[in-house]
């Protein structure tokens, strides 16, 4: 069996090239691969395209916003491309308003489905979300059985950075509660999937095959989070 275990986050992200596209999961701060994003920040790759639910928060925690603030990202695909409160001016918002970064606003369910389509070899799909709104302008519309849909396309990426609760050495993954969020579909959609593991990396065979959220075939690299790196 190929060894997927890396000793450090830095080693695990060392090959991320300038211009790569990456996926970063997390929802309301839970399930964010903060250690891998910190390593990517140290690594310094530039002109990245990011796919994430939001574009970073205002707290001090490391997230996709850390990479944006460091000018490593040229474009974001996200469900939140402006703050939920107008008073919040994140580095992303500032840079977006100044034209220093590009962004596409994607409804959250469409974002999830575009990732799932990428993972699933689906060329495109018709969704009812956003019909009749500004976000559907210019997109192909179709009426199917009396309902109007817009056509949406998959979102692929070179890398997915994943935060799992538990893994086995083959890369089978388990998540805890709402930590799951975008993690499984991003892990399945990206070309290279790199995982930081909170609790344990157990020997292959110890996870019940009926209780695996991401099959190990989708996982390329695993790093155990040290005790001081486990925070949401």
């Amino acid at each position: 069996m190929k060894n997927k275990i890396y000793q450090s986050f830095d080693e695990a992200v060392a090959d991320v090239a300038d211009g790569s596209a990456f996926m970063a999961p997390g929802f309301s701060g839970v399930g964010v691969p903060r250690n891998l994003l910190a390593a990517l920040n140290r690594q310094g790759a530039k002109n990245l395209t990011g796919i994430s639910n939001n574009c970073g928060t205002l707290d001090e925690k490391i997230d996709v916003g850390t990479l944006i603030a460091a000018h490593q990202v040229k474009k974001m695909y996200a469900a939140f491309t402006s703050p939920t409160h107008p008073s919040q001016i994140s580095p992303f918002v500032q840079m977006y308003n100044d034209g220093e970064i590009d962004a596409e606003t994607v409804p959250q369910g469409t974002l999830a489905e575009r990732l799932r389509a990428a993972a699933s070899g689906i060329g495109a799909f018709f969704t009812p979300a956003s019909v009749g709104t500004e976000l559907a302008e210019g997109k192909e519309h179709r009426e199917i059985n009396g309902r109007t849909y817009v056509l949406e396309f998959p979102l692929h990426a070179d890398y997915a950075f994943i935060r799992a609760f538990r893994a086995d050495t083959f890369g089978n993954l388990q998540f805890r509660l709402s930590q799951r969020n975008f993690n499984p579909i991003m892990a399945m959609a990206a070309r290279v999937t790199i995982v930081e593991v909170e609790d344990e990396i157990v020997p292959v065979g110890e996870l019940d095959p009926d209780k695996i959220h991401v099959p190990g075939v989708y996982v390329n690299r695993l790093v155990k989070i040290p005790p001081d790196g486990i925070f949401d």
Partner: protein
Amino acid sequence: MTEEKPKLQRQAMCDRLAMEFQDDWIVNLGVGMPTLCSNYVDPTKDLIFHSENGVIGYGPLAPAGEEDRHLVNAGGQNVVPIPGMAIVHHADSFALIRGGMVDVTVMGAYEVAENGDFANWRIPNRKGGGIGGAMDLAACAKQVFIALEHTTRDGKPRMLKRCALPITAPGVVTLVATDLGLFKVTPQGFELREHAPGWTPEEIQELTEATLVIPPDLKEFRFRD
């Protein structure tokens, strides 16, 4: 002046919407004010709270000190699990939403229009928007309830003939609670179902751009028992 008359509290607005939830409904509460709906509990009804992040059947907010850092609702608040809760990933969570399983979504808004349009994601003169899961929910939930202040801070109406801001979904709103009353969206426009205590239909109309339908059976706003 009308401005000095007491208006409805946010909790009362959300209580009132929550009274419309029916037994066994799957309910999705938007970030902010709508989460107050979960404070109204009718023991005769079982509700299933769904959150976009894949939590199906969560319970009340976690008491301080008892938070599970891995369990949050759509607003990022720590909630407690209740028996029967199930977790799915984001694509499956929106499969449930688009699949028409959500009976009602309650959202805040900047504006709502008499044709059932509403706007809650984009502020003018600002690039981008905070759409989150609102478009998926608005387009696919069986009903959309809106909770919003009747006017902006500087007194401009939010209950409009047509939305001025970019809309979240067209023609989907069925019920609106403001701090001045409860409004049903009908083919004839907003029907004032219940008025805030001390407020006449004429006073409410004055703060509303859309023309209100005032039914013969207009009632006073219903508070929780």
